[in-house]
Each structure stands twice: as structure tokens, then as C-alpha cells.
């Protein structure tokens, strides 16, 4: 009888420990999440000419970052870019980007110096990202510098680079060409959070 009770309590203790172990294992797995994502990333571009400054913002960028491979994927809807003036936005969508026909732009690339980033330690790390940028159905290889910022609860990725509209077969008529910079300055700000692993 006594032995039986002891056995039961022992069983209970073992069960409890096992439960706790599983619980902590789960936390460990969650903390070591390999994939990070965001649906509210920012991509904006800026054009400066003596005639006019033009700025457009998109706060609905979807992005995924895999910290084991350094793979990065971004996707945007062209219609989510916002300009101060409604007419500019209309021209951008209808004349230049043809967003009814080509609604999305994307980037698929990789951090090439992944070993220089310590994802376990908070801080800012310089990275180089290479990959395919697809705008207006034209894909070009690009390579750009940026930073990876490891913060508590996530990873921030920032980059600034220039693109030339003509590289993506975006034709801007002569009258307006003077008003738009030959090189558009693109800013990327992503705040990734870990993907909950089930």
C-alpha cells in the first residue's frame, strides 16, 4: 500500500518535471525562431530635381528573413505607394508602372556576409545584400549595402540604394523627364518579428 502511494507521487513528480521540460523546450524553440517576417515594412523613394521634389511611401511591404540562410524576400503592391498629390499617384500607376497590368514588385536575395552578423547579440551590423529586383516585370541583379539591427524581440533591416527607372523599362516622356531624378533614391526600413513556430 505504502509502496503504491509512493509510486503514484513519484509518477506525479516525473510527470511534472517532464511537463516543465517540454514547456522550456518549447520556449527555447520559440526563441530560436529561424524565420522572421513583417507585413508593415516601409519602402519609399525620393526624387530631387531643381524643378520638383517627389516622394512616395509604402507602409505595406511584406517581407521574410531567414537568419540561418540569410535569404530575404520582399513583396509590394504598386498601388500601396502614396504621393502627396493625387494626380502624381495616378500618373505613377497608370502611365509609368502600369499597375493594373503589373500590380506587384518584388525582391528576392541573400545576405552575402551572414557570418558577420551575430543574431544572438543585440547591435547593428553592416551587411551586403545581393539579389533579383523585379519592377515593372523587369528583373535586374542588384547588390546593395545595408544594416541589420538585432533588437529585443526582433530584427530591423535598413538599406538605401539608387535605381534608374529606364533599367526597368519605365518610360518617362521628355516633358516630364526633367522633373524626375535620373537616379531614384530608395529607402527600405523593415521591422521583422519572429514567426511563431507551431
Amino acid at each position, binding site marked *: 500500500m505504502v509502496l503504491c502511494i509512493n509510486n503514484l507521487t513519484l509518477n506525479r513528480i516525473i510527470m511534472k518535471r517532464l511537463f516543465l521540460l517540454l514547456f522550456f523546450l518549447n520556449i527555447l524553440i520559440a526563441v530560436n525562431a529561424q524565420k522572421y517576417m513583417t*507585413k*508593415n515594412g*516601409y519602402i519609399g523613394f525620393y526624387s530631387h530635381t531643381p524643378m520638383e521634389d517627389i516622394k512616395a*511611401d509604402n*507602409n*505595406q511591404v*511584406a517581407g521574410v528573413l531567414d537568419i540561418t540562410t540569410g535569404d530575404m524576400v520582399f*513583396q*509590394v*503592391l504598386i*498601388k*500601396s505607394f*502614396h504621393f502627396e*498629390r*493625387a*494626380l502624381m*499617384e495616378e500618373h505613377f500607376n497608370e502611365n509609368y508602372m502600369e499597375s*493594373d497590368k503589373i*500590380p*506587384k514588385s518584388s525582391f528576392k536575395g541573400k545576405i552575402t556576409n551572414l557570418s558577420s552578423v551575430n543574431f544572438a547579440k543585440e547591435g547593428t551590423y553592416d551587411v551586403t545584400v545581393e539579389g533579383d529586383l523585379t519592377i515593372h516585370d523587369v528583373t535586374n541583379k542588384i547588390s546593395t549595402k545595408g544594416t541589420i539591427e538585432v533588437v529585443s524581440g526582433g530584427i530591423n533591416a535598413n538599406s538605401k540604394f539608387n535605381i534608374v527607372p529606364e533599367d526597368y523599362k519605365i518610360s518617362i516622356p521628355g516633358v516630364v523627364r526633367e522633373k524626375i531624378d535620373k537616379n531614384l533614391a530608395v529607402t527600405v*526600413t523593415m521591422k521583422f518579428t519572429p514567426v511563431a513556430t507551431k
Partner: protein
Amino acid sequence: MKTYVKIALFVVSFIALSGILAALYMFNLKHTDMAKARPDFILSATVLQKEFEDNETTASAKYINKILEVSGTIASVKPADNNIISISLVTGSDISSIICTFPAITDPLKFKTGDEIKLRGECSGFLMDVLLNNCAVIVNKK
């Protein structure tokens, strides 16, 4: 000067002036104020998400560039650095929702997870979620 020349001059300058004014007006035109705009469709967040998930092409043709009045429950609130607020609405899917982005002026404190909300916005399309832009709150119930 002869009278008909005067009249001709007057007409020409009138046309030129109205042309310049119209161009200025077009150039400075602001975005549609969603709070006052007439919605093209009135529907729930769940229905909207399901239509895009079932057939993106049909739903895109139907909703993109249209003003949608959507009602639903707030699943999350995300403020960005530049004071732009985005909220997502609960739908029938775990991974795909409706993301509504508000202009920079919006007061972030008025959105709480779990609140019922009705809003109007312009549909940009579908990535992983249905995206609405330039949103305005119509009713915000606790």
C-alpha cells in the same frame, strides 16, 4: 479698338485663365477623403478576405481601386516610425487578414485589439493579406 476685337480678346483671355486654373486645380488635387466618400462595396472583413483567397483574379478585378466599407474586429495595431498606423482585422484565416493603413495624422490610442470597427478605405490588392489604404474610421465601438 473695334468692339469685336475686344470681345475676342476677352474670350481668349477667359479661356486661357480657366485653363490655367483647371490645371492648377488638377495639380493640387488631394486624395479622396474616405470619411466623406461613397463606398462602392459594403462588406465584412471575413467575406472580403475569403473572396481574395478563393479567387485573387476575380476579386482583384472587382475590388482594386474601389472604396470599400469594411466592418470587423481589430486583430492587431502596428504603429510605424513615421506615425502611420496600420491595423489588421480578424478574418476566417489564421495567416491572412485585412491590413488597413491610415494617414499619418491618426490618433494611435483610439485603436485597441478586440474592438469592433467599421472603416472605409481604398483597396490596393492582395499580397498575403488584403490591403486597404488611405483609411478613415466610420464607427469605432468598444
